[in-house]
């Protein structure tokens, strides 16, 4: 009986190990497929020329070599933008606590250049993370940046105070050191999930384009 039990246990353990291996293989294949899709999209090519909250000129090339978590929003946003920026900031802080990881640059780009000038962006970003950089510029420059990342933005009707809400894509984008888009995180992803995903990307990083 003892021998039979040992054989059954060994078979069970082997089957379990095989199952785990296959599951990990499937996950690996899914990630490789996603990398291929991103390669085909190569989202985020082209340059942008914007101003940060100190009025300093920033080009996309300035961020080469850095990992970036990017969010497009606007300062007159009722709730979604502050929540997403809070979450982005918490994810960045989680990653800061992990030894040996490269720093992540948090970045905010406005989709409302008409109202969000350098001063407005400066007032806005200070509430979230000390290193959060906020970018704005002329409507043309801002549109060029948001179309490079296929961000949808549409200003709604103005009320009698001239106030309006900008409907826009709500995503946090992860950019790798080559400036191209590696991953994205929607409203449903938590700060912890974002940090874990970023860490995984950092550990397995390959440039999107050859």
């Amino acid at each position, binding site marked *: 009986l003892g021998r039979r039990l040992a054989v059954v246990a060994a078979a069970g353990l082997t089957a379990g190990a095989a199952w785990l291996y296959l599951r990990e293989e499937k996950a690996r294949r899914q990630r490789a497929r996603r990398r291929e899709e991103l390669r085909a999209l190569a989202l985020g090519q082209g340059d942008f020329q914007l101003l940060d909250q100190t009025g300093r000129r920033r080009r996309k090339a300035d961020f080469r070599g850095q990992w970036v978590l990017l969010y497009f929003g606007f*300062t*007159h946003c*009722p*709730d979604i933008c*502050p929540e997403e920026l809070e979450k982005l900031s918490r994810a960045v802080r989680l990653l800061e606590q992990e030894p040996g990881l490269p720093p992540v640059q948090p970045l905010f780009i406005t989709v409302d250049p008409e*109202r*969000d000038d350098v001063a*407005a962006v400066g*007032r*806005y970003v200070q*509430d979230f993370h000390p290193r959060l950089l906020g970018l704005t510029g002329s409507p043309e420059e801002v549109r060029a940046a948001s179309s490079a990342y296929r961000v949808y933005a549409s200003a709604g009707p103005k*009320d009698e*105070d*001239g*106030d*309006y*809400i900008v409907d826009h894509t709500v995503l946090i984008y992860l950019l790798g050191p080559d400036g191209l888009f590696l991953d994205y995180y929607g409203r449903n992803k938590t700060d912890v999930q974002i940090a874990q995903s970023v860490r995984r990307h950092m550990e397995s990083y390959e440039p999107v384009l050859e």
Partner: protein
Amino acid sequence: VARMSAPTMEERKACWGARDEFWQCLDRHADDAAKCEKLRLSFESRCPQQWVKYFDKRRDFLKYKRKLETEGYHPPEAAGKS
């Protein structure tokens, strides 16, 4: 007319707080807005007009969503209704 600055973080939180108090009152009174007039006024005074409209729509959406989740989806009747 000077362009309005965006609300600060404090102003946002004051607005969200007033909104939450108003919504909690509505929850307690089965959405009878007449029972929550004071909180409604407080909500309107603490939030930009655009945000009041936005949050009103959000509340309607959340109610509709809750209804779908509890009662299920009933396609609108064919003839005779709006």
